[in-house]
């Protein structure tokens, strides 16, 4: 028992004059609690699970039993609950406050959806049960598919992609398959500079060659540059709409027509669908494929990194190439088209993308969300999301550099650059860390790449005006103070569970797993 030293080996002391305790014995600060690693606290013979005894039968492992120590410490249930509860409190989350990460659409996650996803009828069924026993599940997928098609004005949807990037893959594979079906060898995919990294990565992943198209001064795809590059070698363009600068691409329909005219396809990155849901149907803009991040527009929770779900709506041209499995209506009910019936019902399908049928848990949440909002509510979602973003833009553009504000309103997110900090030696990162101390999650920083020191602020429609006013107030305050007294802002955050973390060190000497020798 080490009673003389605290966790970091320093004696506790009072800060002279202030009366504040700077270091405690435990390292805790009242309700901000430190938590050691599982590997430092757990033990190999502790368990938080009771199980029935193992019946004494001779094993049938053919000598392949695992006879070395694995190294998996356990906790009793009380210790485990506390470990995770304490850790959770070191996180910011949408449940705590506005989470204005541009391009991420961090909106409120309704709890009804969590409840519905846990109904045993959805959560406790196996993907390979006989189809007669999962008709309700197929119905749910089918109803959700119907909503997605109607909301986008598209004739088909592939449900199995597991996230946005996987949806992109689905769309691009459909395009590859469509080209192959025509023996068309074209392989160039045009991607705007401002595109999300998944766009070029996906195109490359399925064998396309990526070429960039620049943005114009208004933050949109440079129409002329696009037209200049279009030609018979262009397999597809990938366009984000609204784009990653938070702006609507007014030329999308014209671009689509031009792409189609040269025999290419239009992939639309639908990550920003929240801005237009219920107000614009991508199908009316000539799109051939678009993924929808259910974990953005349709509010399935982000879970600290995932899971997501990325259904892809498809044009009539691409629909025949959609992946299996999918749900088909028959005279007697619903049928899942898999390998056995693909020959009949999906002869041109490019095949299977995942082992089973996609993100059922996310489907339930998304449908619950859609039914709750309805067609009227979803339209209101887009309107309020856009209104909130423009309110932020209007309230900050006198202080923050707003590169495209002069070109008119933004859509669901407001883009700023850190040009206004020039000369202070401070940048977007310092501003972000300053906001952390104020109790906010910062905006997306340094994306899109087309803007210097980008700050992309996406409030979403689930923020109240009072919350926006508080954020705006804090953003003005921090910016003003940074201009007035730059030195005070180089080292934030100061009040978070950790001070600024050394990311360079982490990458230079990667420590990716706990080594037992590390223990104190």
């Amino acid at each position, binding site marked *: 028992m080490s009673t003389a030293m605290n966790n970091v080996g320093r004696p506790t002391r009072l800060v002279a004059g202030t009366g504040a305790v700077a270091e405690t014995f435990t390292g805790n600060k009242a309700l901000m609690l430190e938590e050691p*690693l599982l590997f430092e606290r757990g033990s*190999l013979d502790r*368990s938080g699970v009771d*199980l029935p005894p*193992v*019946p004494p039968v*001779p094993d*049938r*492992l053919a000598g392949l*039993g695992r006879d070395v120590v*694995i190294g*998996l410490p*356990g906790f009793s*249930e009380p210790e*485990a609950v506390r470990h995770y*509860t304490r850790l959770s409190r070191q*996180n*910011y989350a949408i449940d705590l406050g506005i989470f204005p990460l541009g391009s991420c659409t961090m909106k409120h996650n309704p709890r009804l959806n969590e409840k519905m996803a846990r109904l045993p*009828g*959805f959560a*406790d069924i*196996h*993907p*390979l049960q006989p189809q007669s026993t999962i008709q*309700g*599940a197929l119905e*749910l997928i089918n*109803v959700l598919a119907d909503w997605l098609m*109607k909301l986008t004005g598209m004739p088909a949807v592939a449900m199995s992609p597991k*996230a946005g*990037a996987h949806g992109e893959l689905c769309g691009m594979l459909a395009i590859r398959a469509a080209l192959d079906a025509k023996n068309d060898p074209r392989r160039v995919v045009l991607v705007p500079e401002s595109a999300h*990294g*998944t766009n070029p*990565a996906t195109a490359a992943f399925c064998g396309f060659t990526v070429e960039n198209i620049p943005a114009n001064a208004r933050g949109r795809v440079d129409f002329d540059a696009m037209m200049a590059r279009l030609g018979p070698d262009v397999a597809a363009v990938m366009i984000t709409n609204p784009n990653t600068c938070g702006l*609507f691409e*007014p030329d999308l*329909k014209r671009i689509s027509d031009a792409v189609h005219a040269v025999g290419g396809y239009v992939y639309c990155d639908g990550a920003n669908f929240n801005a237009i849901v219920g107000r614009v149907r991508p199908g009316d803009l000539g799109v051939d494929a678009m993924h929808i991040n259910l974990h953005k527009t349709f509010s399935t929770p*982000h*879970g*600290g*990194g995932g*899971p997501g779900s990325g259904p892809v709506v498809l044009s009539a041209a691409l629909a025949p190439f959609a992946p299996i499995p999918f749900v088909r209506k028959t005279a007697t009910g619903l049928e899942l088209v898999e390998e056995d019936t693909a020959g009949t019902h999906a002869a041109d399908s490019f095949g*299977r*993308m995942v*082992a*089973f*049928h996609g993100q059922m848990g*996310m489907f339930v949440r998304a449908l619950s969300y859609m039914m709750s*909002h*309805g067609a*009227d509510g979803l339209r209101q979602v887009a309107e309020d999301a856009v209104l909130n973003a423009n309110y932020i*833009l209007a309230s900050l553009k006198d202080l923050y550099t707003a590169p495209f504000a002069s070109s008119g309103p933004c859509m669901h997110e407001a883009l700023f650059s850190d040009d206004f900090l020039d000369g202070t030696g401070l940048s977007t990162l310092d501003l972000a860390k300053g906001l952390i101390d104020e109790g906010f999650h*910062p905006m997306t920083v340094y994306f899109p790449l087309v803007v210097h020191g980008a700050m992309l602020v996406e409030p979403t429609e689930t923020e109240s*005006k009072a919350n926006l006013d508080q954020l705006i107030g804090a953003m003005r305050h921090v910016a003003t103070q940074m201009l007035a007294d730059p030195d005070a802002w180089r080292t934030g955050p100061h009040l978070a569970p950790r*001070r600024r*973390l050394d*990311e360079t060190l982490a*990458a230079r000497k990667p420590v*990716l*797993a706990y080594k037992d020798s590390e223990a104190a």
Partner: protein
Amino acid sequence: MRYLPLSTADRSAMLATIGAASVDDLFSDVPAEAVLDGPIAGLPNHASEMAVERALVKMAGKNKTASTNPFFVGCGAYKHHVPASVDMVIQRGEFLTAYTPYQPEIAQGTLQVLFEFQTQVARLTGMEVANASMYDGSTAMTEAVFMARRITRKPKCIVSAGVHPHYTSVLNTLTRFTGDVVEAGVPSFTKGAPGDDLAHLIASIDADTSSVVVQNPNLFGHIADLTPLADACHKAGALLIVVVTEIVSLGAIKSPGEMGADIVVGEGQSLGAGLLFGGPYLGLFACREKHVRQAPGRLCGETVDASGKRGFVLTLSTREQHIRREKATSNICTNSGLIALAFSAHLTLLGEKGLRHLAALNHARAVQLADRLGRVPGVTLLNGPFFNEFTLDLGREARPVVRKLAEKGVLGGVSMGRLWPGEKSLTSGMIVAVTETATDEDFDAYEDALDEVMAK
């Protein structure tokens, strides 16, 4: 509209600040032909929580759930008991509603969990490092094949016939376009070692081989010593990729790492997630440290903060799409973070002791049922060694048998006809999975039902 906080007065005030007359002004970039005047037709308007709940409860009620029926379906997704506290943990708003930890100072909760998860996965699989999760086992396997190609710079991947056919399908979907060469065969239905093609795999390795992919336990539940295969791979400069679809097995059988695997991928659904009709699941991805810069997906690493305290960050992101774009190791962005948390919490609750107990229990119960069902007239147990899943040869087409069992309320397994349609040699096979959740009464019900169905 319960999720929308703006009032009409708020909206007017905000439009005034913006200097717009109406919200339509904000959509002025939308071309006239695409403007919708009102809510989209053919869809209902907003509904109360009560009404939505009523409708969804009704749909859910049309499915037969695993817990309310004797249940023995496996083949890549297993029904295990998940402790109630796991669900409590993943419902903590701070985990559930956080984004990817891009601001590490206020995401240490998620990051420390990921670091613990990576360590657990590495140890469980017997590898040095693991990433922060992939979508599921099947996509993880595909990524592993591509990673091996990047490392070895060779074109060919040899896939064991004992790999789950859906996994192989997923790989084929992509390689059709990427140009990777995939060789995969049809499984043998050999008594004692169904699906075991190790000798054939070893013989097939050549100078062009970048990787060999093998599943253990394989689709049929068969388990094997992969050491000779690993040796053969390494001799030829190829990598051994091992797929584990039932991760609980690693509490009882030698890990792929111990047998020489270079990359281990797996489906982590067995711990923490539940069945969920196939998703969201959890792709596990582990490899040797020396290869980590070619690995796909996010990695969490240890570092220190400005005051010298330990902390965690996402790291080595120069591999990833948001930095490397078309040159990234993978296009993955959103992964399965919350399911990784569930997995990690379940494994933490089990601990080594609990996991070994769980695995031993699964195995022993499976042995008990295998022997009982193997004695049903007309039924032959195909497996020699197995973990918690085995294959029965019914001597007749298995698919209708599975359906008839379901009519009797027993979800008895998966027919080979569903997984390998058209493969005549396999149609009499039924794969049965047994976990800790099956009771003696469930065993009785199964045996009785199978007896009856086979007697007809």
